[in-house]
């Protein structure tokens, strides 16, 4: 199930959103958040959605990742129409194909780093030994193999976020979603996490879609989509000029 590692060349889009519309009702007022938005996301690169707070970035991410149903529009992910799937099938799709990194690390206080990473692997019907091997591999990839036995309380914020990334990538997803992954981190750790996400897109060929207004992320993204008021305003490739690896 691992996608073949793709080099620098982005392939065909693996995730498409078409005419996505979403509004939230508060009292009698309908606030539109997504206004008929369309976009394509390609594998092997880190795509960033930036924009001011409240512009609908996170809602877009939720719709594209199969967490929140849009009012109208469709999402095609890896050839599947996400919002035509029933709840169980959607859950299975997320299990097999997507990884998530959230702003909060959302780790269980009772579990060691390796157990946090193993947890979702059980649902993939991996044996305990296989899951452990794969979890240690993922922790090694985020540079935490030496700290695999530690619990969240014994780790720094940056380390916790790297465990969360390892948890997401141990499933070997083709789609990796990250919501403000650096906002709770200091400069050094933030940089580390960005580098990691970027590297993962390259080495695993995954489509990494990241929502952030952190300027450091903007600098490292392969592609930046600027969003404002429920619409995409700009689509640039800053990395192309820098040639960052």
């Amino acid at each position: 199930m691992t996608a073949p590692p793709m080099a620098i060349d982005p392939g065909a889009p693996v995730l498409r959103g078409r005419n996505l519309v979403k509004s939230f009702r508060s009292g009698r007022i309908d606030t539109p958040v997504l206004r008929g938005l369309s976009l394509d996301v390609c594998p092997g690169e880190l795509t960033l959605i930036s924009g001011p707070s409240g512009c609908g970035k996170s809602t877009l991410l939720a719709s594209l990742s199969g967490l929140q149903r849009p009012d109208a529009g469709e999402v095609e992910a890896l050839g599947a129409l996400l919002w035509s799937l029933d709840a169980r099938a959607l859950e299975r799709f997320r299990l097999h194909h997507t990884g998530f990194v959230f702003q909060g690390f959302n780790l269980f206080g009772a579990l060691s780093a390796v157990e946090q990473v193993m947890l979702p692997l059980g649902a993939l019907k991996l044996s305990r030994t296989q899951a452990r091997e794969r979890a240690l591999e993922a922790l090694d990839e985020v540079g935490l193999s030496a700290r695999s036995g530690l619990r969240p309380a014994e780790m720094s914020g940056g380390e916790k976020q790297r465990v969360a990334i390892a948890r997401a990538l141990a499933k070997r997803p083709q789609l990796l979603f990250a919501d403000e992954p650096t906002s709770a981190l200091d400069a050094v750790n933030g940089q580390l996490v960005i580098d990691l996400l970027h590297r993962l897109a390259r080495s695993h060929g995954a489509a990494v879609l990241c929502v952030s207004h952190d300027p450091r992320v903007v600098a490292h993204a392969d592609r930046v989509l600027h969003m404002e008021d429920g619409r995409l305003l700009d689509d640039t490739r800053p990395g192309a000029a820098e040639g960052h690896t």
Partner: protein
Amino acid sequence: MIVPLARKSLLHEWRRFLPAVVAVAFSGLLLLVQAALVLGIFGSSAVYIDASRGDLWVGHPGTRTVELGRAIPRDTEIWLRLDPAVDRVEAYSWIEGDWRSRPDVGAITLYVSGVDTSPDALLFARVLTPDMRVRLDEPGSVIVDEADMKKLGVAIGDRPRINGRTVRVVGAVSGLRTLGGVNILSSLETISRLQPGGPGDERVPYYVVRLHDAAQLPEARSRLAAAGREHGFEVWTRKEFAKSASDYWLLDTGAGLGVLFLAVVVSLVGAVITSQTLMGAVAGSATEYAALQALGIGVRALRGVVLEQAAWIGSAGLLLGGVGAWAALSLARHYHVPVVLESWAVAACAVLVLGISMISGLAAVRALRSADPATLLR
């Protein structure tokens, strides 16, 4: 799950789960002690039967418990002896008495049992030693329960009066206490002198029968029952009569309803505390559960985690409650409080306690709704 999340969380956050364990333990303790008291107190209403040997009891038709006996025809004994399976027939007399010992002890209602004094007699065979029976042979002698002596205001050798007639306390045994009142043993001859109306009526309310061979019980019983329908008596096996006596006190007096009501309250309180604690624990980990859902771990698996925690809490609480109940019952026995625990009652309490925690777990599963992964994206 390949990672024992439920167990690890319980151990890691034991302080958070402790109230639930304690609530379950107290529910278990209360249910067990209550069951033991009920069985002890209401079971004591069958003490006359349980303390005696013999295979069959014979009494007035429709009698529910020993205290409610009525005199049966004298010829009953003959009909019983005529049956080839019958080995021994013993008369058992039972009357209420008014007790006066010392001026400072008020009137006490007590029950006098008049029994056969031969050394191999059936009645109260488990309480009376042959030596004690010999002492009862002396006219006017009675035996009391040692736990009642203080209440009765007597010592061995004293001469109190029952129904206005003087008797002599010749010994004390243990195991005669019942719910209804104080029990005293005498010989059949003595009890006939204690009848309020004075001696004369030779009829007794019960006969106890021993068969040659216990295997003949079903046939002998149906033969004697047929005879009883004709001659005005009814026949019960000792088990039936004992059950009828405790059922009468438990079910027909309203006492059982009170006990049941208490059990419901105890279970409800335990379930509420346990479910609230579990819900709090689930809500406290809502974002972690939500992240797992985002990663594709289904609600079903997470529900399993909550229910497993409920099962562990139930088991731990049951263990703790069991130890507590054992200590409480030991204390009760030490102070002669009638407590009896039978294995079926223990099993019923265990099922109830585990049921409480599993229902709490099911209630707490609702808290997983707050673990919607979309809420993680702001």
